[in-house]
Every structure is written in structure tokens, then in C-alpha cells.
């Protein structure tokens, strides 16, 4: 009897959870759905007072127009180049440093690792002004170097993620390779690194999300329009339109900018979630 009653109560709880979650899901999806709907409307329909209406007629041509009113392809190329280089840079440099911190013993190792971690706490804006002065002196302003080169020296959070992963690998692997006469670098490069595919995926996704969407960095360093990223292009497209904002085109362009991030999220959600969870649980 009491078992039965409990089952009924549990079913009721599950049902309540579903109802609340469905409401949350609708609210969470609404902004992106709205972005999509607006991107397919005609300009006159965007501020139609029956704004809850669906696009009618459906204007797929907005997308063609959006990528031609701004030099979309140029910005896409620039953004892809910068993002690709930052990913390569941090994958190499962060994993090398992490291997050193995780697997090799040397005096001062723990102190140096704590220093690496604590730099994550410094607000990004504090070193920004001196870095800008330094890049200006090096004549790096208006090039992609300030946005890319630092990644080739490792990113503390990524070093942390790789280190957590290296620590979980058994030592026997290295010992066996050492007996076979492999050098430390060979062990890192040929044996350990291929085993860290989940960490490589996580760091790739984090770096992609950070760089692809970055605004402040490109705004500070990229002056000539031909070198702009998608974020700068979108911001300037939005900023020029003081009175009659072409929201339908802005939403089409914005959605195209978000699309790669959305696709990567759907394909590699597992790694994204694991990375965030690792940062929180072990950090």
C-alpha cells in the first residue's frame, strides 16, 4: 500500500519536473528561435505590432543580402584564421607545459604550478594596457599577432585541464617506453598526447568558443577593416544604423556567426560538458 502510494508520488514529482523543465526549455529556446524567425522576415514585418507572428513570406534571401552588405566572407576568413592559429598554439604549448607539471619531477614544480593557476584570477583588463604599449612598440598593432602569439606560450586554464588528464594515465606506459629507449619528448608526443584526445577536444572547443566570439581583443588590436573579425563586422554593422536598424539582416548575419559554435556544441557536447565539470569539481 505504502509502496504504491510512494510510486504515485514519485510519478507526480517526475511529472512536475517535466512541466517545469518544459517551461524552462521554451523560455531558453525562445531568444534563438526569435532570432531565426526575425532573420526570415521582411523588413516591414519586423516591427509589425503582431510581433509574435511568424515570417510571412519566408525571406531566405535575407541571408544572401546579409553576407553581401558587409564583407562577410572576408571577416569569416580572418576569424577562421585567428581561431585556427590560437587552437594550434594552445594545444601544443599548454599540453607540453602540462606534461612537465604532471609527469616530470623538478624543484619548484608545485610553486610554479600554483603561480600558473593564480594568473587566472587576475582580471584580463589589468595587463591589457601594458600589453598594448608593448605591441605598439613591437609594431604588432593592426596585425593578428597580439591575438595569436600568446597562445603559443600556453593558457593556464588549458594547462590545468591537460594536467588533470595526464595525472589519470598509468605510469607503466612511460616506463615501458623508457625501457624501449624512447626520449621524454617522444613519450610525450607519441604515447601520452594521443591518449589525451578528450582533453584535446575539450581545449579545442573552449578555445574556439573564446576566440570566435572575442570582441575586446580584436577591437583593440585590429584597426583596418580588411583585417576585422566577424564580431567587429557585426558590431560595426549594428552601430552604423542609428535610426532604421535592418533587424532582419542583423539577425541573419548574427545567426550565421553563431552557427559554427552551435554546430560544434551539438557535435561535441560531451567534451564541452566534461571540461566545465572538470574546472568546477577539481578546481
Amino acid at each position: 500500500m505504502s509502496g504504491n502510494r510512494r510510486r504515485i508520488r514519485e510519478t507526480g514529482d517526475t511529472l512536475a519536473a517535466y512541466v517545469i523543465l518544459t517551461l524552462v526549455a521554451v523560455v531558453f529556446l525562445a531568444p534563438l528561435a526569435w532570432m531565426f524567425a526575425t532573420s526570415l522576415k521582411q523588413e516591414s514585418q519586423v516591427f509589425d505590432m503582431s510581433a509574435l507572428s511568424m515570417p510571412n513570406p519566408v525571406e531566405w534571401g535575407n541571408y544572401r543580402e546579409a553576407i553581401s552588405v558587409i564583407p562577410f566572407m572576408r571577416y569569416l576568413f580572418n576569424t577562421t584564421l585567428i581561431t585556427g592559429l590560437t587552437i594550434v598554439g594552445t594545444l601544443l604549448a599548454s599540453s607540453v607545459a602540462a606534461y612537465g607539471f604532471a609527469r616530470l619531477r623538478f624543484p619548484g614544480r608545485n610553486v610554479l604550478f600554483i603561480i600558473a593557476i593564480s594568473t587566472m584570477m587576475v582580471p584580463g583588463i589589468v595587463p591589457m594596457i601594458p600589453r598594448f604599449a608593448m605591441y605598439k612598440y613591437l609594431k604588432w598593432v593592426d596585425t593578428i599577432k597580439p591575438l595569436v602569439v600568446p597562445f603559443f606560450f600556453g593558457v593556464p586554464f588549458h594547462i590545468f585541464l591537460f594536467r588533470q588528464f595526464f595525472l589519470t594515465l598509468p605510469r607503466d606506459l612511460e616506463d615501458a617506453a623508457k625501457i624501449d629507449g624512447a626520449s621524454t619528448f617522444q613519450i610525450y608526443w607519441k604515447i601520452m598526447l594521443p591518449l589525451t584526445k578528450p582533453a584535446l577536444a575539450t581545449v579545442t572547443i573552449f578555445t574556439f568558443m573564446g576566440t570566435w566570439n572575442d570582441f575586446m581583443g580584436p577591437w583593440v588590436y585590429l584597426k583596418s577593416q580588411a583585417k576585422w573579425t566577424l564580431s567587429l563586422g557585426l558590431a560595426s554593422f549594428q552601430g552604423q544604423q542609428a535610426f532604421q536598424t535592418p533587424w532582419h539582416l542583423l539577425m541573419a548575419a548574427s545567426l550565421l556567426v553563431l552557427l559554427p559554435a552551435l554546430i560544434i556544441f551539438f557535435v561535441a557536447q560531451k567534451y564541452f560538458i566534461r571540461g566545465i565539470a572538470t574546472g568546477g569539481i577539481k578546481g
Partner: protein
Amino acid sequence: MKRLRGREALEGYLFISPWVIGFVVFALGPLLAAVVISFTSWDLIGPAKSVGVENYRELARDPLIAKSLFNTFFYAAFAVPLGVAFALVLAVLLNTKTRGISIYRTIVYLPAVTSGVAIAILWKLLFNADSGLINEVLRLFGSLYEAAINGMASALDSRFTPAAVRFILESLRSLGAPEPPGWLSDPAWSKPALVVMSLWGVGAPTIIFLAGLQGIPRELYEAAQIDGAGKFGKFRHVSLPMLSPLIFFNLVMGFIGAMQIFVQVFIMTDGGPQDSTLFYVLYLFKQAFQYLKFGYGAAMAWLLFFIILGATLVQFVLSKRWVQYER
């Protein structure tokens, strides 16, 4: 053996040397230089001029410093606790092993991967006072409420005197459905608007809480059940203490992030209306990179650094009272 260890140490330094060089060039060096720059007046075009502590004195005099600090604290004071509480509730709801739950999880995480300019532009449209989605939905609810009141009117007529009916209807009308707020165009509503927007992006803390919930051993819940704890009791006496280190982590990280809010306001409001969304980093950014007052900007950056450091230390001290670490 000793030689082997010496060799390992050498290789260790070699492996971390890229990071060490990067740390000196891109972190330590700039931080030291930021101290020096904060004591100068420098536009990065001419030479830097030493001005002593003048920039720091100016921090105390500049009314927009106080204003932007107030705005930033106001935002953080609402966005961070509300965000952490919301993430906790979502994580509990998502921590069921029923069918289809992974779809809900994906939907909750989704906004967390979308950030930056595109999202700021989107929310600017959503918050549009005249015909943004948010106010359209609010008006829809308003008209439903109005219709419900009118429906009540006929039911009340037969039972009460006309004066009483009018009083009831008027008070119900005044309770609900005024014109919805102007959000980003109203100084009183612009910060709450940004808080609402921040709640949409609670995916990351939700993931952390969910991972934490999944790591709590079943036996603890079973023990609590034997002690007679109900569903809420189990949450209060098992989940909450077990999650307290993660609540603390999310509060600290959320605060550090909230104090540096920038892109949203740069794109959506540029600090307006009437400086109501002039947040600290936006003001710093304008001083340094738009007005070329790099010395003043560096002094501002240090103030922010010490505020964040101080607040984080206070949170750590207070955490000893409520965070329970496993021993």
C-alpha cells in the same frame, strides 16, 4: 640515480619553459609595467609623464568612478546570487534519470556556448520597448489578465453592490498589467534587463552543479531516508552540504565575471541611458582606448584588481562558516 633525477628536472624545466617565457612576457612583465604606467600620464603617442599618485587621487574625485562601481556592484549583487540559485534549481531538475532528460540538458546548456556580439544584438532586439519579444509576451499576459477581470465582472455583479464591484475590479486592474517597462531605454530598468539576460546563460554553473549532484554517493541519501528525511530534507541535509564547495566556487567565479561585464553594455547601451549601465570595465575601456588616458586606465585597473581580490578573500573567510569540505 642522482644523475637520472637531474636529467628529469632539466627536462621538466624544458617542458614548462614555453609557459615560463609566456608568463614573464605576457603576464608578469605587463603587471609590473602596469604599476609604473599607473603613476604616469601617457597617451602612448608622446612620452609618458610621471604624475605621482595623481591618477589615484583622481579615482576618488571622479564621480563616474563611484557611479560605475555602484552600477557594477548592483549588477553583480543581483546577477550572481540569482544565477547560482537558478543554476542549482535547474541542476536538481535535470538530475533525474528519466527518458528525454538529455534533450532538456542540451537546451539549458545551449545559451552558454553562444556569447559575444551576436547575442548582445539579439537581446537588444528582444528588449525593444515597443515591439520586442519580451514586452509583446508581457502585453499578451496583460491582456489575458484584463480579460479575466472582465469575465469576473459579470460574476460579481449579481452578488455585490456596484460600488464594491468597482472597487474590486479597480484594485485588480491596478495590480497587474501596466505598460511593460522600457528596459534598456529606462535608467531604472536597464540594469535589471542585463540581470535577466545573464540568467539565460547559467549553463556553465548548471553543468558544474549537475556533475556535483551525480558524484554524491547514494548511501548518503539512503541514510537520510532511514532517518526519516523527505525529498526536501534530503536536499537540505545531503545535497546542499555536499554541493557547498561548488556553490562557493560558482559564487566566486560568477562574481569575478560579473565585475568584468563589458561586451553586452558596449554593444547594447554604450553605458546609457544616463550612465545607468556604465559598468566599471566599460568606463575603464573608454578612458584608456577611446580617450587615450592610459595612465588613468592603469590606475583604474589596479583598483578593480584590489576590489576583486578583496571581495574574493572576504568570500573565502566567510566560506569557512558554511562550506563543508570532505575530510
